[in-house]
């Protein structure tokens, strides 16, 4: 059974909570950019994710008779996290969130208010405004935000049960661009920190988790891998490895060598 990989629970990893939800898996995945709903489902299962994000868009009446995303990615199987992707104002994000709540009967919302088309970086003031309004309206707000410790602090103070700083631009696959800022955020806020966007491969996932991130949210890194199903597995393992390493506590780095084999008893020829 040399290749068998134990689950989080078997390895003694702690579960984590956001709002009233408790998860074993520290990987959250998106449902965009897959070739089919079936491929999406297979990857979601291979990734071990318990929560998946979805977008809200106008019904395509031409395609309306075919299967829908939620017929395959079932709310009975996964916690569905609707997002406000594509919103460029607090007003649009609030309305979209309200429609998500009506559609999915959930108070969870991944708040995304975009400030720039090319980078898809968040509009921080608009994100703060929308977060405030949604919290006042009873939502469990998970905000996608710049890797800015002060913005994360503000979101925590107003009642967000987690913050979701980016690692790199959405869909860029650039990996952890500013590990120092993520470390500061992790030391600054007490709520879970979910690194959202920018990872490209399994080592990126491991790095984010080794820094101490509570969880990781990704989409393109799996969906646009050459073999998405295999990458979904790799990401599951990367997250597990990174989290285990974080919990284990790494050895200190030193500049010079330190022999692993005993010096006593070395033969003298």
């Amino acid at each position, binding site marked *: 059974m040399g290749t068998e990989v134990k689950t989080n629970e078997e390895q003694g990893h702690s579960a984590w909570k956001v709002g009233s939800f408790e998860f074993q898996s520290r990987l959250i995945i*998106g*449902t*965009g*950019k*897959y070739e089919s*709903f079936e491929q*999406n489902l297979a990857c979601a299962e291979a990734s071990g994710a318990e929560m998946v*994000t*979805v*977008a*809200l*868009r*106008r*019904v395509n*009446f031409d395609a*309306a*008779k075919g299967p*829908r*995303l*939620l017929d395959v990615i079932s709310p009975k199987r996964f916690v*569905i996290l*609707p*997002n406000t*992707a594509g919103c460029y104002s607090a007003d649009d994000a609030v*309305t*979209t969130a*309200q*429609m*998500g709540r*009506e*559609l*999915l009967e959930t108070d969870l919302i991944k708040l995304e208010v975009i400030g720039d088309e090319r980078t898809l970086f968040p509009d921080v003031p608009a994100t703060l405004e929308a977060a405030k309004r949604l919290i006042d309206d009873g939502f469990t707000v998970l905000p996608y935000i710049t890797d800015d410790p002060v913005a994360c602090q503000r979101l925590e103070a107003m009642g967000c049960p987690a913050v979701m700083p980016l690692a790199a631009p*959405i*869909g860029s696959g650039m990996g952890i661009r500013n590990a120092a800022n993520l470390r500061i955020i992790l030391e600054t806020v007490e709520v879970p920190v979910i690194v959202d*966007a920018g990872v490209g491969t399994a080592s990126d996932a491991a790095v984010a988790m080794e820094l101490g991130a509570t969880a990781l*949210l*990704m*989409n*393109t890194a799996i969906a646009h891998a050459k073999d998405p199903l295999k990458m979904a597995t790799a990401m599951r393992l990367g997250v597990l490895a990174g989290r285990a390493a974080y919990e284990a506590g790494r050895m200190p780095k030193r500049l010079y060598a330190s022999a692993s084999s005993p010096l006593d008893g070395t033969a003298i020829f």
Partner: protein
Amino acid sequence: MNASQSDSPIEFTLFVNGDPQTLISPCTVADLLEALEMGGHRVAVAVNRDIVVRSRYKEAELADGDRIEILEAVGGG
């Protein structure tokens, strides 16, 4: 158009996901979803930016010029 005509069928135009649609008054959100064959689908509806909750579909009457957004969950990250 005077008040005495308000109970008789009148054609009116509203916008569904941006496209003009001609319907016969009176017409509720439930009637519109039925006409669009969306009855059994999991959707959310807003009329002029206001969310219409499912329990109000049968009483929420639509009017000339209303802008209706009908959204569903799709793949996204």
